[in-house]
């Protein structure tokens, strides 16, 4: 079929193209540029090729050691966060009322933690957990649990994880609740008639119908927890030692603390790449594990 060739359509795309170019592509290219060079200040740059990347992946160097250690910390943190927040969010969503005034009340209460700025969340927990003046820290120490997130690694981790669960489980719960609300009543009635147990209703109806929102929840929570910076920085500052120093904290130390722009640029590129790859894996696995969604239709 003959099509009229009309290149004017390109002009419609142009504004978006420019915005994306200036907001994403050009800054990213700057980072790519930095990642290949070394600087000693005074705006003097020296070509370094893929040197930084080699160092980054070699645990025997200072840069590589720091990167890999913080990477494992980050992956562990994200895994723990997902393992707690996703099931907990589902349980919260399932136990929420489905109608009446209490729905609005629940939604508002759940939304509250999401409305608090990261920095404030960090500050709240930092004070909350202090053994001398914080409610949590004081109570724990008085009932005989020696809790101090400043000096004890385990306590620091526990604080950061509980804080994140407190802050973000609501998001998973709200998404799941939306998914649950979209299930027509006929499904529950049919399940009743089919004699399905509560567990069967969950596995046969609710979980499959929440598949989509759960994917979104997992992606959002993974990305967010993998990029976490503010809250642990405010609460523990990455300590004690380096025990809660995540990649983002390490990155800021290198870029702004030491002003090693080359190393920092290389690190941020790899960091970015990891997030994209892990998200892609989650997406592929979850869309395929559920069911073949958009397969060929038409059998009768």
């Amino acid at each position, binding site marked *: 079929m003959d099509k009229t060739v009309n290149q004017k359509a390109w002009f419609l795309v142009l504004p978006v193209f420019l915005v994306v170019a200036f907001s994403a592509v050009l800054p990213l290219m700057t980072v790519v540029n930095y990642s290949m060079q070394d600087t000693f200040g005074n705006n003097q740059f020296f070509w370094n090729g893929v040197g930084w990347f080699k160092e980054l992946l070699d645990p025997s160097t200072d840069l590589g050691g720091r990167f890999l250690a913080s990477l494992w910390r980050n992956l562990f943190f994200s895994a723990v966060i997902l393992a707690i927040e996703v099931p907990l969010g589902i349980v919260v969503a399932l136990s929420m009322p489905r109608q009446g005034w209490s729905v609005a009340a629940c939604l508002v209460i759940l939304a509250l933690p999401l409305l608090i700025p990261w920095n404030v969340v960090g500050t709240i927990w930092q004070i909350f957990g202090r053994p001398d003046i914080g409610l949590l820290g004081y109570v724990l120490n008085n009932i005989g649990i020696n809790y101090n997130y400043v000096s004890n690694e385990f306590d620091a981790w526990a604080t950061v994880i509980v804080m994140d669960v407190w802050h973000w489980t609501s998001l998973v719960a709200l998404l799941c609740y939306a998914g649950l609300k979209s299930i027509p009543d*006929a499904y529950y009635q049919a399940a009743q008639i089919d004699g399905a147990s509560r567990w069967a209703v969950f596995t046969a109806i609710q979980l499959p*119908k929440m598949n989509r929102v759960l994917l979104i929840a997992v992606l959002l929570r993974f990305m967010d927890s993998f990029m976490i910076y503010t809250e642990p920085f405010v609460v523990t500052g990455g300590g004690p030692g380096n025990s809660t120093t995540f990649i983002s904290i390490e990155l800021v130390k290198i870029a702004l603390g030491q002003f090693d722009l080359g190393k920092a640029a290389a690190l941020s590129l790899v960091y970015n790449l990891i997030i994209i790859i892990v998200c892609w894996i989650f997406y592929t696995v979850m869309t395929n594990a559920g069911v073949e969604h958009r397969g060929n239709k038409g059998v009768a």
Partner: protein
Amino acid sequence: MARIDLVDLAHSYSGNAAAPESFALKPVTMTWRQGGAYALLGPSGCGKTTLLNLISGIVTPSRGKILFDGTDITPLSTQKRNIAQVFQFPVIYDTMTVGQNLAFPLKNRGVPKAEIDARVAEIAGLLDLKPYLSRKAQRLTADAKQKISLGRGLVRSDVAAVLFDEPLTVIDPELKWQLRSKLKALHRALDLTMIYVTHDQTEALTFADTVVVMHDGRVVQSGTPAELFDKPAHTFVGYFIGSPGMNIVPAEVRGREARIDGHTIRLDRNYDGLPKGAKIEIGVRPEFVDVAAPGSGLLSANIERIDDLGRIRFARVRVGDAKFAARVPAGFSVPDNVAGLVFDAAHVHVYADSLLVEGT
């Protein structure tokens, strides 16, 4: 497998204290025999789905009782009632295969695996689902999904009744015919009591042995398709069943005569005992009124248009203020504006306040 008795059953969604006129289902008492095919027919909002949900236990009645084989099951939950129901929109368990979907109601009730497999194979065979048994149910078309829903309703052999809530709404017209005759065949093959809710008279009349016509929360007539056609108990039934519906016109009835628009029609029976002050109407199906050339002995009518249905033609006419439909005899050429109407006296019915009056 059960006889179903409804005893003075009524329901209001705003509770028992609501005004009797506002009840979604007004008190009804009737018996449905084991193995029958019943249709609940009526327009949207007539209470037919409410009645169905009362039987399945999704809704608990405000008043009255439901008996299965004489046992009061009103307080029982849906699970304990031994009822199967197919809904308007297909309900499919997405993650399961077609076979697992069909087996689900049996599996939940702890039926032995061998028995499940045999029954699933039988039902799948009846519904032509055999080739899809091991496929994921989610990828199928709407009508295949609805077949699975039907199958899940039919798979239990011990159910008291299978209820259908407008199950063919989402199905393409051509497939509707197929599925409907399939249902009819299934009913013959499986000896299950089936109750079918619909607002489509063709669906009701072709499926059911007994059609229960509902209007405004009331059961207005329950009978075979022929009874509904020949002797509508309520003007609503006359109007709702048949296409075009029954002609209902106000008339003065005295003895064996009815006067419409100054003209007298002979009646087959005597109607001397009509209640005083009631609104009297006569009803006659278009099939029993013939258009003829205007004549002195005939009721004259103004012709508005002719509907040619191919096999049969109907004249839409006006008698005084009343609209009328009448059959055009084959080969008769219709006059341009005025025609006479010939009534088949045996099929002219008299209604007092919309209810059929039996003449003597």
